[in-house]
């Protein structure tokens, strides 16, 4: 295998993953794109979606990210995500249950602040579901 791409996934709370990979598929706001080594410098915002990372041995790992940026420069690819969850850690049933709960929260919420929060959680969960 030729050269590898240096890939980093960072959330505000910690460095989530870092290493050399073959290729990464990034869900950009204006369309998905694949980053290989020696890619031209790009700066793109992300839409909620799945980042697919293919490592050295060809195994693909899917990670759900919500909101953020991808920066490609000669040093490699850096994704800044506000939230990232490995898709393998999610289960459809679990998620459906959570969405159900969130819906109830939205209808039960009394003050606007609580309602806004509940709505945010619900939006977030539905995005996750559509990514699966």
């Amino acid at each position: 295998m030729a050269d590898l791409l240096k890939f980093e996934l960072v959330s505000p709370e910690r460095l989530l993953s870092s290493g050399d990979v073959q290729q990464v598929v990034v869900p950009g706001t204006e369309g998905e794109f694949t980053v290989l080594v020696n890619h031209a410098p790009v700066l793109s915002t992300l839409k909620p979606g799945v980042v697919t990372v293919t490592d050295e041995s060809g195994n693909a790992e899917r990670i759900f990210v919500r909101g953020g940026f991808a920066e490609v420069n000669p040093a490699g690819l850096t994704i800044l995500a506000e939230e990232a969850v490995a898709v393998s850690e999610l289960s459809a049933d679990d998620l459906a249950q959570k969405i159900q709960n969130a819906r109830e929260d939205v209808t039960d919420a009394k003050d606007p602040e609580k309602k806004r929060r509940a709505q945010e959680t619900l939006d977030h969960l539905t995005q996750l579901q559509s990514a699966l």
Partner: protein
Amino acid sequence: MASLKDLRNRIATVKSTQKITKAMQMVAAAKLRRAQEAAEAARPYASRMGGVLANLSAAMEGREGGSALMAGTGRQDTHLLIVCTAERGLCGGFNSNIAKLAREHTDRLISEGKAVKIICVGKKGYDVLRRKYDHLIVDRVDLREVKRIAFGNAHDIAGKVLSMFDDGEFDVATLFYSEFRSVISQIPTALQIIPANVVSSEGEAADLGGAIYDYEPEESEILEELLPRNIGVQIFRALLENAASEQGARMSAMDNATRNAGEMIDKLTMSYNRQRQAQITKELIEIISGAEAV
């Protein structure tokens, strides 16, 4: 002169106080380690964000249409101070140092004829500032129930600040927090976050070897999205620094308290022993002189 019983009681009191301060010191040490780890873990994101911003602002330099978050509103009339302090006391000068800095800042701005608004994050800062500037405090954020500061907390504060900015309620925002240097040194810091001071951030513009960045979408749109997020990141960083500083300050304050209690116990024990001996001597003299008289 206190009686023997009084002295015994006082020694017992000081001993139990010492036990408490000792325990608090150890708890603070453990929490400090965790807080430091959290602050360290958050560093890559903040520095990458700084780097991206530096690249972007370098690309945008000398062009029209910069975001208001970066260029400012063109006025300096109303200042917003975001004062981050702890929820608990007993941590030396930690809270009062931040409050003092904020107070000096406020007084200076007022004497210059500017309007000031204050958002208090944390109970202790509110308690201090409310005495003098109650009418200036527009909002307060309670982090009392928060065990571990998550990005969400900072995000909520940033949301408040940004919506105020969008409504034109202030022109300049400054963040007050305590920077963690070491266990014995925490430096109260004022950091201007709106308009953003990108040039001074630690992120260096990356060397592209002559290539030009492709922007998806346009630079201005990216900047528009990135700057609000940067506010959240800055606040998050301030909160984490604060958490580490608070534990550091508490640790050294409690260490001092424990040592002082130790000294006090020594002194009290000394005078207790002296008095005990004096009493024994006195009783002996009484017995002997009584026997001689007979």
